[in-house]
């Protein structure tokens, strides 16, 4: 698949945009039904993908974050994916591999937890006989501001001119206030729906965050 400037660009429509935004992984299934007007490319292993870097600002959602935080949160972020292997791993499949990295900021609230919340101790002091005494607790599950720095391998599958999907195993380095930096395993799956030349709507589901944004293929 190529994102070269050409007359075959797909014009955006309101219906398509709303449809794309609501989908994540499901878009892969719809790709086959759109085959008549959007021919399959997945078997064209040597179709050039036509971009070097994907830049994707997005909204972030998450629940049950790693580390000391709790609850659910929203935020913003951006992802950059640099194409490393344009021909991909599979000989007869139109895939490609990129290195993805980015920055996400999320504000989590304990009482937005999907399974209830418990307050947490925010400060300990040492007491007599070596006891550890909590002197400050969170309120309503507490609030937590996270900064995530994902680093993933993005494995792309280019199904049609409009539809593509990807899997992203990797790591998320995260920072949480007094708790400092830590690292969490990360796993995402997602999809893209092309809405204009070199522009797609992109959805990403996984842990520790979900993301919905727009990708610019440069």
């Amino acid at each position: 698949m190529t994102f070269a400037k050409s007359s075959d660009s797909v014009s955006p429509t309101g219906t398509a945009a709303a449809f794309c935004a609501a989908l994540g992984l499901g878009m892969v299934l719809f790709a086959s039904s759109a085959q008549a007007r959007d021919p399959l490319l997945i078997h064209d292993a040597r179709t050039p993908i036509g971009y070097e870097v994907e830049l994707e600002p997005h909204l972030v959602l998450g629940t049950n974050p790693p580390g000391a935080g709790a609850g659910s949160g929203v935020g913003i972020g951006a992802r950059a994916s640099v194409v490393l292997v344009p021909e991909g791993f599979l000989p007869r499949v139109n895939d490609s591999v990129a290195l993805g990295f980015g920055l996400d900021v999320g504000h989590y609230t304990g009482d937005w937890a999907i399974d209830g919340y418990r307050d947490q101790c925010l400060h300990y002091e040492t007491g007599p006989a070596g006891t550890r005494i909590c002197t400050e607790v969170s309120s309503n599950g507490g609030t937590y501001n996270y900064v995530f720095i994902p680093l993933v391998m993005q494995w792309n599958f280019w199904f049609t001119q409009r539809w593509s999907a990807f899997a992203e195993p990797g790591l998320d380095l995260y920072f949480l206030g007094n708790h400092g930096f830590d690292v969490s395993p990360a796993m995402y799956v997602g999809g893209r729906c092309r809405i204009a030349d070199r522009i797609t709507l992109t959805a990403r589901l996984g842990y520790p965050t979900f993301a919905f944004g727009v990708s610019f293929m440069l």
Partner: protein
Amino acid sequence: MKNTSFLTLTFAVGIALLGAAGCHSGQGSCVQGSTCECSGGTDCYQGCADGNGCDLYCHNMVHCGGVCGDGCGLQCHDVNDCSSSCGDNCQIDCHNTVSCGAFCGANCQYDCQSVDRCGVRAGPGSTIACTSVTTCSVECLGTCRVLCTDVNKCDVTCPNGASPISCANGDLACGSC
């Protein structure tokens, strides 16, 4: 070049946001006058949202803790460690745990029973009872009475380095019996 600028800007903003990241403090979620119970799971730390007058009850988990102002009741049992931080006129009961630790203010009533380590720092007018305990360590910040029963090591520290006195009924006291 344009790509590089975008990435640089993104990460500059991100680094700036690191400074804003953190945990916000709070005062707990239990309402004054109510009993808040917590059991099962690993950790439970409760606080009194209105500051004073809560009853915090925690049992059958690994870590329990309660933070409250004045006039509170804190109870925990069958946990690994239990911590209590309370203001004046609190009643604290900790039993069947590995360790119990507490900071409490004036007129504190502290009972520690069937525990390996009890450690209490209590305000003036407090009464501390350690029963069936390996180590009971009490720091009195004013006058206090400490009753150690079936305790291997009972340490009482009085203000200004004074030694506790032994009372006729077996209590140790800071100040007079």
